[in-house]
Structure formats: structure tokens, C-alpha cells
């Protein structure tokens, strides 16, 4: 088994959306209503309960390495977004039913037969990935193609990516490959290339992402949080504050009743 994950190299993405289609088809997810945003080629606009891969189209009026188009100092960045399967996952830590579990592949999986649709994970995800489908009542997200992994197959999105922008494999190997790729890009005159969430040291708030990315700009422009934190890291502070307030409240109640 061992930890599996995705390495999404955005410098290779051509925005074909084959990953979106393959994900929908394999997982038999319903369509999104075929809406038109009118802002870019991105008509999916966000990950959601029935959208587990989402290709973003970023238009930047700055020259960024190999991403320059013919139109002068203008770069076109494309990125296939997905659930990050965080090493420390906000959704998993917040789930009160135990519906969200970590699998033998180190991925984060929502068990549809356990989820009761409380909605807490939706607010706990620092990436805005997991969502509750209102007519279904449960929370859904990418499963890292758990059914395919069990059969020793590559997840549908990675299998269908024509440029190997989405790479699937053992995390240890993926990380080494990603670091080599960054060095290569730096050599080839793309100094902006950097990894996002590839290790616990690089992203302590989530202790690293099992689906990490190679970006050529700051995470914000890709709609990624710059320093995401699993929300349970705030717990100690909040519970201490509650404990202090609890002493105060008990004193109030006793004082109100007992004092002459």
C-alpha cells in the first residue's frame, strides 16, 4: 500500500478538462447544470459535492516564465484543482460521526453510508473543497478513486491527463520527482516555479498535502490559501478561553444565589 497521492504540475496543464470529464464519468457524478460564467474558460468555477476536479484558468497581465502567450506580457496559468487529502485534514478532524476516515492509501474518504449531513466539514475545510449536496443531504468530495486504487488502477483523472500534468503515485517518489522538476524549470529559466504543500515543513498548518502542486505564481492567484491551517489547531486556545469563562459563569451563578 503506502501513501499515494497526486502531483499536479500546472506548467504542463493545457486546460483540456479531460480530468473533469473522466472524474464525472468514472464516479458517475451528476452534471453541474451546464452554466456559463462569462468570465473565462472556467465554467465549473469551484469544486463541489458533484465536482471533484476543477480546472482553473488564471489570466495574469505579467510575464511568467514559459507561460507567456503571444500577446506580450501576459501569462495564462491553468491548474486542475482537487481535494488535497491533507496529512492533517480539517474535515476529518471535525467530523462528529466518524464518517470521514483515512484509508490504507493515506487518502481522506467520506463514507456515504455513515455521513448524516451535519455540514461541519464544509466550514472546516481550509480549501473549500468538501460540500454538502442539498438534495442528497450528505457531504461529498474526491475519493482519490478509492475503488480504482483497490484494483491497483490509477485514478481516473490522472489516467486521462494527456500531458501528465496530473501525476499519481507513491508520495515519496512523487515528492522527489516534483523537486527534480522544480530544479529543471529553474535551470530552464522559470525562476517562479515553486511547490505548494509538498511537505509538512513547507505547509505546517496541514502537515503537508497528499495532493500537492507545482505553481509559477503565488497561491492566491490560483484560488489557493497561502498558509492553510487545519482549524483544530485553534482548539487549545478556544477551549482554554471557555474554561476560564466557565469558572466565571459558575461563580456568577453561585454568587447570585448565595450572597446575602
Amino acid at each position, binding site marked *: 500500500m503506502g501513501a499515494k497521492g497526486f502531483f499536479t504540475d500546472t506548467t504542463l496543464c493545457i486546460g483540456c478538462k479531460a480530468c473533469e470529464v473522466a472524474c464525472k464519468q468514472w464516479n458517475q457524478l451528476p452534471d453541474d447544470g451546464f452554466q456559463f460564467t462569462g468570465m473565462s474558460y472556467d465554467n465549473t468555477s469551484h469544486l463541489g459535492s458533484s465536482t471533484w476536479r476543477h480546472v482553473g484558468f488564471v489570466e495574469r497581465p505579467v510575464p511568467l516564465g514559459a507561460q507567456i502567450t503571444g500577446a506580450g506580457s501576459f501569462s495564462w496559468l491553468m491548474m486542475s484543482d482537487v481535494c488535497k487529502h491533507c496529512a492533517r485534514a480539517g474535515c476529518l478532524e471535525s467530523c462528529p460521526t*466518524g464518517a470521514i476516515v483515512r484509508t490504507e492509501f493515506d487518502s481522506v474518504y467520506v463514507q456515504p453510508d455513515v455521513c448524516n449531513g451535519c*455540514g461541519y466539514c464544509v466550514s472546516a475545510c481550509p480549501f473549500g473543497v468538501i460540500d454538502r449536496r442539498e438534495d442528497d443531504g450528505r457531504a461529498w468530495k474526491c475519493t482519490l478513486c478509492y475503488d480504482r486504487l483497490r484494483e491497483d488502477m490509477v485514478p481516473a483523472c490522472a489516467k486521462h491527463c494527456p500531458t501528465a500534468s496530473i501525476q499519481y503515485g507513491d508520495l515519496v517518489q512523487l515528492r522527489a520527482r516534483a523537486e527534480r522538476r522544480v530544479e529543471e524549470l529553474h535551470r530552464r529559466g522559470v525562476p517562479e516555479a515553486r511547490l505548494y504543500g509538498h511537505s509538512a515543513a513547507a505547509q505546517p498548518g496541514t502537515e503537508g498535502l497528499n495532493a500537492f502542486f507545482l505553481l509559477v505564481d503565488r497561491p492566491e492567484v490560483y484560488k489557493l490559501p497561502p498558509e492553510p491551517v487545519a482549524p483544530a489547531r485553534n482548539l487549545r486556545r478556544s477551549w482554554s*478561553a471557555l474554561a476560564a469563562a466557565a469558572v466565571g459563569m459558575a461563580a456568577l451563578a453561585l454568587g447570585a444565589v448565595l450572597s446575602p
Partner: protein
Amino acid sequence: MGRRETLMSQLRGEPPPADDGRNVDSLLGLLEGEGAAQQVERLAEEHPHPPPSELHDSTSDLETYYGLPLLKEHVWKAAIPAYFYVGGLAGASAALGAAATWSASPLLRGLVRKTRLIATSGAMVSGALLIEDLGRPSRFFNMLRVFRPTSPMSIGSWLLAGFGALSTTAALFRGRRAGPLAAIGDGAAVGAGVLGVPLAGYTAVLLSSTAVPVWQGARTWLPPLFMASAVTSAACVLDLCDLNALERRAVRRFGIAGKAAELVFSKAVEREVARPAILAAPLRHGMSGALWKGAKLLVAASLALSLAPRASPRLRRASAWLGTLGSVALRFGILRAGRISARDPRATFAQQRGGPVTAQAGAPELVPDHAGPAASRDLAPASASEPSKVRAR
């Protein structure tokens, strides 16, 4: 539908199921994928484009992705802020009731009875509200399937379950003056009081351990605020009951302290959230801002009335209603603020970058001073193309 059911339904000549947006021909494909169990009733409505953040100007802002939200808005409906109020009311009532039980004063027997009734009915209403808001209400019992210390919702579920049992036991034996049943009732009342105190505040811990910037930003002062507001709620509801002079005095003290603390902690939350300033925007503007400010005004008015030295029954009732409205408005305002905050990606960016955000006329900008060495390299082109966007600290 499994393989067998599909085939059987085809053999029976039944029409294929209505369009579920999957485009799977039931003669050729079987619905067995990871997402096949996802039920679809309303196809077109289900995937609306998220509203851009209210403060966003898509033509000038380079920092966000078309102004689209980074986070998902919370999916809770009015039942959840209503529960925050009712749960707080029940918890604080139980705490006061436990203190009154413990004092064993015969003059406070009426107060003991009333607090026990409020606590148990509050627990029941709380359970109903929480179950109603679930996506799958029939699976409410899964809340007690595991105990997860990292999830305040899990801790809260167990707290509420224990509180419900204890407060109901206490209420059942509220009329007994002596004997084993009275002792059981008193013990249960003290236990309910002990659980009621955290029950009144854990909901704030629950909110502050989410990714929502304004809730996360208030992680130190929101729990005390919710607990003070719970004291206000309980005192106000008890003020509407028929009490003797000694009980009235106890409730008045409890209420005055709660209302004063609520006002102080509101201020503390505002100060805590305002770093960086963009986080506090939902508490200042729009409906959430109106609810937040309204809550403070109502509680202040209620406090002023209850401070009047010889209050007439009518004044007492007015003060109680003002305080109740204030507590309810506070919970709805906080929930609404979280919704607005989740919509604004720049709030998340500013909070995580730790950089100050200039709060200028609704157009705050990021100062990317915390970007790492790799990030700062390509900031130069950004500042060259938009010199006004990047500012030195």
C-alpha cells in the same frame, strides 16, 4: 440501484429512471461508481455559481481568482443559530438552578423548579433543532457513534446527550422535598449545571475551529461572549416568570452581570477580529453588521432597564424582552457574518499572510510582505504593472 435491481426493472419493462444528470444508459451502464449513490432531485439548481464577495471589484483586483470565494459558505439554516440561543439558555438556566439547588434555601424552591423546567425543555428543543438541520435527519444517532476530541461538534453532541438526561431527571423530581427521589433529582440538577456551563459556550469553540476567517479570528473571546450571552438569555426568560422577592434579586444579579459581561466581550471580539481589519468587515456592514450592532444596543438597553433601582413589573418585562431579542440577534448576526466572511477570499489571504490590510473605503489590499523568498521574486513584475497595488510597510 444495484446490478440486479436494474436488470430486474428492465426485464419488467419499467421506464428508465428520470434524468439524474449522469447520462448513463441503464441498458449499457450500471450505477456503481463512488458517486453513484448521490441522490439528485434538482439538477439545475444544485451547482449555482458562488456569489462573488460583496466587497469585490473584479476589474481592479489581481489578488483573487475572479473574486470567487475560496471557502464554502456554511450550510446551516436558521435552526442552528436558534439552537445556539436555546442551548445557551438551557445551559445557563441549569447552572443557576444547580447553584440554587446547592444552596438548599427553601425560599428559592420556585426558582429551582423553573430553572429545571427551562433546562429540560431547552434540551429537548435543542435536540429537535439540531436533528431538523441535518442533511439526513434519520441518521442523527450517528452523532453518538464515536467520540472525537478534535471535533467540538462531537464533544457538544455528547454534552447535550448527557445534559438532556440529567436535566430531564432533575425536572421529573422537581416537586419532591425529601426522600431518595429528591436526592436523585438534586444530584441530577447539579450534574446538569456542571454540563450546562460548557454547553452554553462550546458552540463558540465549534465556530472558531472552522476555516471561516471572522470566526477563526474571534477564537479567544467568542466562547466567553457566548457564555455571557447565555447568562443574559437565562436571566431574561426567568425575569418573565413569576418569582418571589429573593428569587427576583438573584435573577437580577445574574442578569446584570451577564449583560455587562456580554457588552464587554462583544467589544473584545471586535478588537480581536480587527487584526487584520478586513476580517471585521462583516461585523460592520450589511445585515450581519446590523444584527451585531442591534444585539449590542438591545442588551445595553436591557441592562440600563434592569439597573433601575425599583423596577416595576412592566419595566422588568421590557428589559427581559430586550435582552432576549439581543441574545437571539447576536447568534444570527454571528452566523450571518460567517457566511459573508467565507465569501471574501481576501479575508482568508490577509489572515494567513499575517500582513496588514489597509481598510480604505472598502478596497483593502494585500501587502505581500510575508511571501517567502520564492514568492517575493515574482512580485516585482506584479508591482511594476500595478504600482499602486503593492505598498511597502
